Structures are given as structure tokens and as C-alpha cells.
């Protein structure tokens, strides 16, 4: 049982790390501000979600796991709000993105 949980953790955390690389590469390589914002806010939140899901079997109790999920939901809410705010600020800044 422990081995299965550990394997699940490894697979999910590696997948999460892949999405973090994707977000960073997108931030560095994409041509304009909106595409960079897109890469950042989506890929990174998915990466964090996969890391959280991967860490769930390693937690001691149900409460610790729920707290991890709470962190992820908090980040999702904050990131969705902030990405909309930044995109709106950029659009109001003028035609040049």
C-alpha cells in the first residue's frame, strides 16, 4: 500500500514539475504580455494542483490534507482574480500590449 502511495506521489509531483517548467518557458519565450499571462496563470496553477494531489498520500491525517487543498483553492482564487486585473490594466494602458 505504501509503495502504491509513493508511486502515485512520484508520478503526480513529476507531472507538476513539468507544468512548472512549461509555465517558466512560456513566461520567457512567448511574444506578448497576454500570452505570457496566459502561460503563467494556467500552467503554474495546474502544476501546483498536481503537486498538492501528489502530496496528499504523504500527509498524516485528513485535516492536513484538507489544509493542502485549501492552499490550492486559495491560490486558484487569487490567481484568477489577479490575472483578470492585470489583463484589464494592460488593456487600459493603450493599444500596445
Amino acid at each position, binding site marked *: 500500500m505504501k509503495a502504491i502511495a509513493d508511486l502515485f506521489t512520484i508520478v503526480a509531483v513529476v507531472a507538476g514539475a513539468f507544468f512548472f517548467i512549461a509555465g517558466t518557458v512560456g513566461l*520567457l519565450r512567448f511574444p506578448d504580455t497576454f500570452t505570457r499571462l496566459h502561460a503563467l496563470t494556467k500552467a503554474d496553477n495546474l502544476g501546483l494542483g498536481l503537486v498538492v494531489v501528489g502530496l496528499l498520500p504523504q500527509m*498524516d491525517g485528513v485535516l492536513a490534507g484538507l489544509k493542502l487543498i485549501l492552499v490550492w483553492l*486559495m491560490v486558484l482564487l487569487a490567481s484568477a482574480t489577479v490575472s483578470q486585473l492585470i489583463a484589464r490594466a494592460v488593456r487600459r494602458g493603450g493599444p500596445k500590449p
Partner: protein
Amino acid sequence: MTEFLLGASAFVLLTVAVGLVCILRGPDDVDRMMSVQLFGTAGIAALLLLGAAIGAAAVVDLALILAVLAAFAAIAFVKAGTHMASESDEAEDRA
């Protein structure tokens, strides 16, 4: 398992470090702010991995604080930017 989690934490921190190049490079303040957002999200992931690796439950609280602070920083940035923009618009109107 501890070694794997520590390695994953270090790896995520490495992607943050690479993303911080964007702060130097720009080209705009918005892009620098996005790099800070990346630092927030990936820093939380690195903290959670570290906490699970060393078995310190309190690290989750740190991650929660970092989530709130990153959101506040971005909102303050947007508010400051739009405030200055509207002030300069008013200045242009008066001129």
C-alpha cells in the same frame, strides 16, 4: 521518499530562479509583476514539497501566507498603476 521530495523542491525552486530572469529583462513592468506571480505560485509548491519532505506541518501555514501576500502584491501593483494612469489623464485634460 524524503530525497525525492527534497529534489523536487529544489527543482521547482530552480524554475523560479530561471523565471526571475524576466525581472531583469522586462520589457515592461507588467512582465516583471508576472514574474513575481510565478515566484508566488512556484514558491508555494516548493514550500509544500519541503514541508512534506522534512515532516514540518507548520510549513503549510507559511505557504498560505505566501499565497495571500502574492495576491495582495499584485492587486497593489494594479491599483497603483491605474491610479497613476488616471492622474496623468487628468493632468492631460487640464493642460
